[in-house]
């Protein structure tokens, strides 16, 4: 029977409380040296690419996170059997140990910030309007001038985004051991950041968010977490450590349409 994997944990013992996974199957731990791979048997009738399955995957990982250090697997990581899975785990064992050490007692928090990007861009564009090259007759030069104007507008817009993002990051940077910042995924989504935070500093992180939120201005903020460290797993060969957890199986069913939302419930 195929097995569905949820996470690697820093324990090779059995589950000491019953957890139900996809299709209400029992979740169990397969030991490998000093770590374990948390899995459940996958009934062929169970649809794995559904909203319910995503939520169930996340629920299982979050429950594990309360008691173990967890490296979440990417959604839909399925193996044809225990042997195939253990072969892969053997390949990645050193990586798992390193990552477990790095994320031990830490959790991931997400910060998103929306600003009035459209308005800011319009303001910058208006400042350039008077410089319009209407008098130019040569088509190549006119084309270049127009493109150059757009290039300058975009550049100024990005510099403004850099400035604002740095201010936001200043609230959280000191509390995180690692971070990943993505700016301007859309004109209005100024910042989409993930921070790896010591569990002891979790309340300080939330306090920093409150301080930021009460600092006024037009910006809108979102805090999410604590999450398993989806964005902070580094695999040295193949794999990726991308959003959504580890991908160690080249035979796993992969579903890319949900990227960015995978297992995050955001």
């Amino acid at each position, binding site marked *: 029977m195929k097995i569905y994997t949820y996470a690697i944990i820093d324990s090779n013992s059995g589950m000491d409380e019953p957890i139900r996974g996809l299709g209400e199957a029992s979740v169990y731990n397969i030991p490998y040296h000093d770590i374990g791979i948390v899995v459940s048997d996958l009934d062929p009738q169970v649809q794995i690419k559904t909203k319910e399955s995503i939520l169930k995957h996340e629920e299982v990982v979050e429950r594990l996170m309360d008691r173990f250090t967890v490296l979440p697997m990417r959604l839909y990581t399925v193996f044809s059997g225990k042997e195939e899975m253990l072969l892969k785990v053997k390949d990645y064992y050193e990586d798992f140990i390193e990552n477990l050490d790095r994320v031990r007692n830490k959790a991931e928090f997400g910060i*998103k910030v*929306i600003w009035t990007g459209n308005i800011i861009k319009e303001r910058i564009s208006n400042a350039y309007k008077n410089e319009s090259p209407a008098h130019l007759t*040569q*088509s*190549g*030069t*006119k*084309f*270049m001038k127009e*493109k*150059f104007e757009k*290039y300058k507008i975009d550049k100024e817009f990005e510099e403004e985004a850099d400035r604002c993002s740095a201010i936001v990051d200043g609230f959280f940077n000191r509390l995180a051991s690692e971070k990943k910042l*993505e*700016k*301007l*995924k*859309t004109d*209005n*989504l100024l910042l989409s950041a993930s921070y790896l935070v010591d569990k002891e500093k979790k309340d300080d992180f*939330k306090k920093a*968010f409150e301080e930021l*939120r009460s600092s006024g201005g037009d910006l*809108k*903020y*979102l*805090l*999410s*977490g*604590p999450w398993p460290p989806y964005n902070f797993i580094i695999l040295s060969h193949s794999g990726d450590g991308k959003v959504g957890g580890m991908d160690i199986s080249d035979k796993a069913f992969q579903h*890319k*349409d949900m*990227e*960015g*939302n995978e297992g995050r*419930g*955001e």
Partner: protein
Amino acid sequence: MVETDSLEIFAKEMEKVQDALPKKIEANPENAEKGLAKLVLTLIELIRKLMEKQAMRRVEAGSLTDEEIERVGETLMKLENKMKELKEIFGLKDEELNLNLGPLGDLM
């Protein structure tokens, strides 16, 4: 746990992020030609954008003469027009030719 005063606004913005990034080339027996065209045009668009950016940097640095600006401009304009034509032929929109370039961000 999610904390925000503006959940709907964030949900809408995240939808835009999802919509802006086609995750795979939709190639099947019915639309193989379009799927392939999408892949090829995405790569051409990537190269075109890189060329355009490099040209802008050179204009900014003042390292192009007026003549060179005219010549580069004409070339880039023709490339852009040709791309527009090809997109129309294959029924592709700008946003369909986007690519996630990892740490470099999105192509468009």
